[in-house]
């Protein structure tokens, strides 16, 4: 393969696009491998969990006081009157995510951070996690994308955003002290006693199905995944009871023995004794499970290469994951060293976020990349950032993003951006510098023959070479 073609593939398939392929240098493989490490810091002064929780509490208070003052919807001027700190915080997190991706010089690391944040999805759609999603990415994901899988898994599972998003916060052992205590208070007809009686299986199920082993049938030809039963889900939920926080009193997640289900738990035929130590033990076992290796290897290959990646390559990545005990840098190196990874055909359709971020990099928009609503365009194309519709995260197949309406939204967005910038950017040399040998004759010709500079730029943004990677 020619070095320029390899540079183009490195920049687009594994990165977020470059305005000039020269930044990749003479050795694209080395350029990628140099980037393996923790993701860039998103900047200072961004909110942590404590700020997010405080903004949540303020928002609740404001809501309660407006309800108490008897203001009806009709005579309230607008719900946004006054400063909505929580909304600003959520927008600030999205802005930080996008600006980091637009400006980073380590786009491969950034893509990995996006991949793992999606694998361990938490969203702002749930009231109790609103304001915590940016903190989750910064604290649990970004520092750990180049360590061992089990450490990433532990940090994600233990993060307050995940404990809340998947309801472990309020899951109690049916025979725990807290449940007995509350039952006594309720029996004494205490109207203030909370209603709480036992397990919530949400985290346990998604930990098995989405984060580690995978759903049994979902692996298809890349399987077998899964291998757990309802009894395993219930036992894991019992094992996870007690991991809560933070609350007003305790600033960090902690193990509260009063909430923990007493007794041993048996998960996938392994016995785990009562207590906080079982958490690490079970995550270690799940992280080492062959189903987990196959599941992660498939998802990674699917994300970077093709909706249906070559099975031989997935098998190789699986082996590396198992042999290295989930060492992520080894896995990424194996990905880059795979001959299949450099196949010239660009099969993956960019997600809306990848499209918008790579456009901003192409157009060198820098810090000025985002307007007042940083993610409006991405949302219109079908991807509201930090708001994936389910714990499974965003889909990673072209068919999910290629509805006629979704494509039309891309055209509208590209057309608007090009109208604004067409006068100052010449698409012809830009197409050559950014796409190199990937620029096909048909696209070059269309850009050359465009009616005006704006149209040329819109054609470049919407070309198959730029829509796919």
């Amino acid at each position, binding site marked *: 393969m020619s070095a320029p073609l390899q540079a183009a593939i490195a920049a687009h398939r594994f990165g977020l696009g470059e305005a000039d392929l020269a930044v990749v240098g003479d050795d694209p493989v080395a350029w990628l491998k140099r980037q393996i490490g923790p993701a860039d810091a998103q900047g200072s002064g961004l909110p942590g969990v404590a700020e997010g929780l405080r903004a949540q509490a303020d928002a609740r208070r404001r809501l309660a006081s407006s309800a108490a003052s008897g203001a009806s919807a009709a005579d309230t001027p607008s719900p946004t009157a006054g400063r909505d700190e929580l909304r600003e915080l959520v927008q600030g997190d999205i802005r930080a995510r996008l600006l980091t991706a637009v400006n980073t010089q380590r786009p491969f690391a950034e893509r990995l951070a996006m991949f793992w944040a999606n694998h361990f999805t938490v969203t702002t759609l749930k009231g109790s996690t609103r304001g915590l999603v940016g903190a989750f990415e910064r604290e649990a994901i970004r520092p750990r994308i180049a360590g061992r899988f089990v450490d990433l898994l532990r940090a994600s599972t233990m993060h307050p955003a995940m404990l809340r998003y998947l309801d472990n916060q309020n899951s109690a052992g049916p025979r725990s002290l807290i449940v007995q205590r509350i039952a006594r208070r309720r029996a004494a007809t205490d109207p203030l006693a909370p209603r709480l009686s036992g397990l919530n299986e949400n985290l346990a199920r998604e930990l098995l199905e989405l984060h580690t082993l995978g759903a049994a049938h979902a692996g298809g030809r890349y399987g077998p995944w899964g291998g757990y039963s*309802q009894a395993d889900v219930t036992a894991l939920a019992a094992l996870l009871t007690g991991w809560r926080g933070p609350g007003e009193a305790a600033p960090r997640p902690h193990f509260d023995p009063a909430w923990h289900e007493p007794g041993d738990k048996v998960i996938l035929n392994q016995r785990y004794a009562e207590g906080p130590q079982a958490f690490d033990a079970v995550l270690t076992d799940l992280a080492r499970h062959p189903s987990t290796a196959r599941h992660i290897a498939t998802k990674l290959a699917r994300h970077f290469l093709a909706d249906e990646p070559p099975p031989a390559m997935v098998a190789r990545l699986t082996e590396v994951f198992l042999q290295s005990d989930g060492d992520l840098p080894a896995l990424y190196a194996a990905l880059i060293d795979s001959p299949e990874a450099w196949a010239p055909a660009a099969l993956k359709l960019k997600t809306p976020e990848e499209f918008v971020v790579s456009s901003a990099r192409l157009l060198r928009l820098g810090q000025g990349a985002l307007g007042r609503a940083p993610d409006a365009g991405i949302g219109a194309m079908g991807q509201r950032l930090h708001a994936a*519709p389910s714990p499974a995260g965003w889909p990673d197949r072209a068919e*999910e993003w290629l509805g006629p309406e979704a494509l*039309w939204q891309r055209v509208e967005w*590209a057309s608007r951006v090009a109208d604004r910038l067409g006068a100052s950017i010449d698409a012809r040399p830009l197409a050559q510098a950014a796409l190199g040998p990937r620029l096909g004759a048909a696209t070059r010709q269309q850009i050359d023959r465009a009616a005006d500079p704006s149209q040329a730029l819109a054609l470049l943004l919407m070309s198959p070479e730029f829509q796919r990677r």
Partner: protein
Amino acid sequence: MTALHLSRRRLLATSALLPATRLSFGAAPSAGDARLVLVILRGGLDGLGAVPAPGDPAFATARGALASYAEPALGLSGPFALHPALAQLHAMYGRGEMSVMHAVGLPYKERSHFEAQQLLESGGQRPHEVTTGWLGRALAASRGKGIALQSAVPLVLRGPATVDTWAPSALPEPAPDLVSRLGMLYEADPDLARALARAQALRADGMPTAMRGAGMAGVTRPGQAVTLAQRAAEFLGAPGGPQVAVLDMGGWDTHANQAAPQGALANNLRQLDTALATLREGLLAKGCWAQTAVLVCTEFGRQVAVNGTQGTDHGSGGAAFALGGAIAGGKVLADWPGLAPKDRFEGRDLRITTDLRAVFRTLLIDHLRLPQATVNREALPGTAELRSVPILRS
């Protein structure tokens, strides 16, 4: 099963050889043509929350704090009632336009949202075995048209048939010249070319686009459902419009605090209620409500007993709704298994006594008038043994 393993091209060829179906879907339809709306509630609607069974002796004990609502439930026949947020649906029930199906579900036991939704939409026997949708295959066989009220085509409509998508847009339209040049650019990329051509065709049909709000690829937020229901009625009522529309609503995965009067379940049910009433009004105005069947269903029901956080975890059997002028309403169709622990599936879930695919079959065969053989072979293989469910007016 073999039909499902045919390549896309073979399947197209097969359907082209079929004799024309009884309804000429391809021609400009008169108002007499049947319409089908499928509403998918993603996340697992709690059937016993939406359609409680206060008359079942085990109900109150099993449901605990979830057994009652802020307002009284609305009575239905037998032991059943309707969540108070479903007042307009209840009125339709009273008018004989809506029936409830209970203890209904898919033959799938593992309680994963993603696998269960895959089955709900693909109509396959095992998750991920089939990668097109049962409704998409049915439309291909009947040369019908479908529309999804979201930006991406949902799995249930995927297949060789013509399927459009529509979602609200806030941006100005691109210049037609740009679009036609993109058409040339996509000559070597059939997927992009097809999506662009369909989007263009939708606009050429004069469909308005300038509405506020953004559509999401995965799941429609509940707040949008009313707007989308309104548009669905306009599409279905337009001359030459689609026969089938698919809407979906997310947010039904109620693991915690399910009984809160302003909680997710109550709010979502209110939105659903308003959206369905809006759909009815729209279709009435277009004169096609009488020929319409709407099916509202979900991937699975939830555990019978309240969980430790005043919510419900994933279960099996649940409830579904059929409404429309074509529906024989005012009934609760349920071969009720009972809620006592011994009657439950694995001691925890409402047992499934009606296969949801039997409802799909009934709608395809008796409402859209697809030949039974086509349904058996292409739309829903492996379901030939299922008996039809009496939801339609005869």
